[in-house]
């Protein structure tokens, strides 16, 4: 009996174990309550909206790699003392295969997400779950995001260092990132062919406009307007043309047309003030207040360093801080595309950790080269520095800290962190008037209008197109026939401002990049103005747009255009040399050989 008891106990145990195991699958195979299955999505326009916002949510995970790849590889950003080996590799151009910052997977996750959403939008259209107009706006938006991501991958990655093989291009929805690793599912495209494909996609979009204001997607969520959430397709297509112009010069004009459509977006909208201020890069026409986006001083105290307007709502700096309080008119003068990070919803703001030495890890800092760029400018009051530098980075506890992304979190004067519940908020700065003007100037300059490019870099349209006072031209009192470009579209500008006869043209306050920053103009030397103006535009972008994620692409685009690797190689070399990196010479050799690309490898 005893024997049998043990035996049966043992058997029972074994049986119980087996049953438990076999039933596991059944037990776990219930419908999760906080997730949707395939059949539950894409039923109506609100589902479609949710899908679009889902794409943007995923897209925001690219904020950190975007800023790191575009800035740390270029000449304005350096690894700090806290930076790990991998960040140093990016800066030194010595990346190893295991470097997590060159993992293309997050980029392709967004792309697969887009492909899937686009396929489903088409299906909804056929099934009449979306109206044509509803479909077109959403489809075009998601397609543009995919294009933007592809452009970034194309700029940075290639399977071979010289960029002849390129990157995987896939437009079909695949179930998972694992399918992507099966190379039979797609082809590799080198950058030039990729551009052609992307341009084809963008040109074929049913619309290039923003969402109409009546769209359910344009709303306010948790005090955040969604109006500036969405990628601007014209800026993107303009950028594609600008890259493509290296292979097809007729694209310069196409690029300029696209950019001009943005710059002129408000020409016929709203009242006179809206028309003259929005995207017009205005200087400080009314020095009585600091409530503008220019480097300016209190009126009649412009030679006093203590009179510089600098606060969350005053002066040039405020474009990076005023959105913390309200997305006001001045914010909208400048910004075209921004995505907000909030402590209240995912994804988490990656920039505080990256940049701040207060409440963050302080991994990267401004390069010595960037700092000396700012410190070698002279303002109209002879102050020997560019105030934008002092707004872009601050010295906190003896360390230079990139502040553009931190003003929502740190007080700009005391550097004390915000302690409210949404303290770690911020923005991903993607596109603004100054960046579009810079690219527009680049296109105009190469399209045979260097004077226009010069006007954009320096003191603006009115100043540049006002003839000098000479014996034969004793005054410019009558502006009827001056202060205009007299060029065909997209280069036609009227910047007249005068009395008797009276003119108040909407481009009159366009101050130019240096004009808005209170900097003295640069001079043209000799005759090759196209190259000079292009250099000026690139130099100016370093001062105005530092750390906004455009530097590497600006340098690479011009190096490709000029077929001159030294353009990019020397800039990186100078940075590394000034930072005391031992890899300056080897980085130059590498970049001189046209080896500009990060090794493409699934991780």
């Amino acid at each position, binding site marked *: 009996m005893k024997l049998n008891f043990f035996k049966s106990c043992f058997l029972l145990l074994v049986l119980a174990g087996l049953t438990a195991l076999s039933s596991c699958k059944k037990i776990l195979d219930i419908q999760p309550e906080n997730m949707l299955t395939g059949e539950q999505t894409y039923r109506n326009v609100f589902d479609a909206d949710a899908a679009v916002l889902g794409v943007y949510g995923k897209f925001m995970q690219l904020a950190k790699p975007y800023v790191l790849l575009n800035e740390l590889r270029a000449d304005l950003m350096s690894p700090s003392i806290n930076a790990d080996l991998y960040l140093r590799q990016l800066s030194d151009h010595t990346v190893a295969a295991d470097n997590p910052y060159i993992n293309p997977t997050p980029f392709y996750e967004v792309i697969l997400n887009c492909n899937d959403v686009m396929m489903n939008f088409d299906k909804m259209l056929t099934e009449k779950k979306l109206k044509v107009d509803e479909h077109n706006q959403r489809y075009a938006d998601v397609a543009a995001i995919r294009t933007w991501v592809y452009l970034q991958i194309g700029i940075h990655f290639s399977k071979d260092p010289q960029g002849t093989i390129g990157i995987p291009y896939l437009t079909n929805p695949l179930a998972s990132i694992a399918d992507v690793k099966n190379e039979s599912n797609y082809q590799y495209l080198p950058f030039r062919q990729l551009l052609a494909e992307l341009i084809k996609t963008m040109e074929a979009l049913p619309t290039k406009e923003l969402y109409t204001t009546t769209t359910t997607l344009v709303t306010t969520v948790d005090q955040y307007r969604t109006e500036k959430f969405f990628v601007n397709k014209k800026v993107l297509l303009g950028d594609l043309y600008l890259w493509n112009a290296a292979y097809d010069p007729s694209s310069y004009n196409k690029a300029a047309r696209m950019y001009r459509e943005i710059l002129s977006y408000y020409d016929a909208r709203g009242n006179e003030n809206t028309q003259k201020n929005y995207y017009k890069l205005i200087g400080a026409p009314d020095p009585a207040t600091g409530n503008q986006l220019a480097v300016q001083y209190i009126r*009649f105290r*412009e030679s006093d*360093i203590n009179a510089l307007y600098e606060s969350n709502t005053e002066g040039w700096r405020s474009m990076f801080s005023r959105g913390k309080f309200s997305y006001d008119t001045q914010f909208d003068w400048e910004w075209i595309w921004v995505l907000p990070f909030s402590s209240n919803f995912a994804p988490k703001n990656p920039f505080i950790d990256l940049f701040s030495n207060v409440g963050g890890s302080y991994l990267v800092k401004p390069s010595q080269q960037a700092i000396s760029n700012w410190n070698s400018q002279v303002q109209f009051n002879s102050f*020997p520095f560019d105030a934008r530098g002092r707004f872009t980075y601050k010295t906190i506890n003896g360390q230079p800290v990139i502040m553009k992304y931190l003003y929502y979190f740190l007080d700009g004067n005391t550097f004390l962190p915000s302690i409210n519940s949404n303290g770690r908020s911020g923005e991903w700065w993607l596109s603004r008037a100054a960046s579009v003007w810079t690219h527009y100037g680049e296109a105009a300059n190469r399209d045979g209008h260097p004077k226009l490019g010069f006007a954009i870099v320096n003191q603006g349209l009115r100043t540049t197109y006002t003839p000098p006072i000479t014996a034969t031209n004793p005054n410019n009192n009558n502006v009827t026939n001056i202060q205009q470009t007299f060029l065909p579209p997209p280069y036609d500008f009227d910047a007249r401002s005068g009395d008797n006869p009276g003119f108040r043209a909407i481009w009159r306050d366009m101050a130019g990049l240096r004009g808005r920053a209170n900097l003295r103009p640069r001079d043209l030397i000799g005759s090759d103005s196209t190259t000079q103006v292009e250099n000026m535009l690139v130099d100016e972008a370093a001062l105005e747009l530092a750390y906004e994620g455009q530097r590497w692409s600006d340098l690479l685009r011009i190096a490709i255009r000029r077929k001159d690797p030294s353009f990019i190689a020397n800039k990186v070399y100078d940075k590394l040399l000034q930072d005391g990196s031992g890899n300056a010479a080897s980085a130059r050799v590498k970049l001189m050989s046209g080896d500009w690309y990060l090794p493409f490898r699934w991780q």
Partner: protein
Amino acid sequence: MYLKTTLLWVFFFALCLAGCKKWDDHNKIGNQDLSKTLLDEISGRSNLGKFYEYLKKTGLDKELSSSKTYTVWAPVNDALQSLDPAIIADSAKLRQFVANHISYQTYFTRNAQPAVRVPMLNGKRVTFSATKFDEANITTADIYVSNGVLQVIDNVAPVYPNAWELVNSTKTLFQQSAYILSLTRKVFDPANAIIDSINPQTGQPIYRPGTDSVLRNRYDTEVYDLQNEGKQYTYFILNDAAFNTEIIKLNPYFKTGTTDSTKNLASFAVAKDLTVEGLYTIAQLPAVLISKSGVKIPIDKNKIVETRKMSNGIAYVISGINFDVKDKIPTAIVQGENPRGFFDANGVAVIPRQNNVSAIFIRSRFNPLTNLTFTDMFAYNHGISALSVQYRAQNLPSVKYKVYWVAPNDTLYVNGAIVPVVYNQRLAMGVRGTNFLPSATGQAVAINNYSEVYLGDWIQSSYGTLDMFLTAAASTSNTVNRLNLDYIKLVPDL
């Protein structure tokens, strides 16, 4: 069948046990003996009996059986034989001594390469290297038990005084020590004060007497904190003859109303340059060290009469040190961007404003001669006749100075460019409206001149504060009453 099943169960348990053992191995670190505490280990070693006895006597044995981790450097019995009976008799001293051999946290010899200064329970630090603890050799190393590490050493680690304690204990021996002690003052410090009430008239708190101040020594705040056990210093003590020689040398530069205060100031000027950071053994001492205030300390090793070990460094008693007076009397620079006040021709304080706009500009500029940026003061269109801008140099030694200024007089930008013109400005020394340099009519300020301009000499008759008044022409015209100053430089003429 019964046997077979039983065997199966036995086998099963055996497997479990074997597994347990394996897990145990997996978790094990080094060769730690978890069954013993430090106290057990010490008491179990007969050659540490004396140390164990002192642990019991001082009550530190209870500390060692607590749940914290410690490292104990235990001297063997032979080493403790020769311990000063005065220490054994005084329980406080004995506790200090024993605590000088115990630290929190675990220190293995492998952690001591290179040597570390380990903070001990008595607040001191002792140097621990792979083979030595202070001067003692480690005879048995790294005995790892449940609450820490035991290191057996062949000699004691005496408790050395820190620099502050050394100063205290030598106050009758050396005038220098007595002088440094005399720098201790009661200073207001509300950090730990108790508020008794609030004054209803002023709203200021009324502190409980005796709680609102702390004792601070000026040497600790202005030179180095001699009590800091975390740092190491090399400290020179001048014997009385040498100390007095140096004071007499400096007396003329610290002229004041009384000989006592002059001697005090001169004494500080001597003493402030007698401590340097870092430990320099005799062999390591260079011919010249640089003090915190940048003064050269010439060292003649033949004059070292005594060397004293300190817990935070080393002290040398020396019979002479020949400071160069030129090093001790520095050049003073007063920056133009730091004005103290503005006065009109009658000495009435004014705020120079016109149309509600300040006419004083603090400017950032680039100096093409030095290739450096600088900040200056430019007064323009202020509308005040003979405007005086007050500047102050403090703690100025009494000596003759050569006075210079830098006044760039370049283009100012206020609502357009203001074309620079040559104008006159002057510097009143000491009292507004008097002792003008270079003269009562002033100095013509050249345009775009970034170099230093020599104005004349000034004899500072007594040590202390010197006010200087940059004074504009007696006119309200903005072409002649401008003022511009990068800095004033006072160079001692020695």
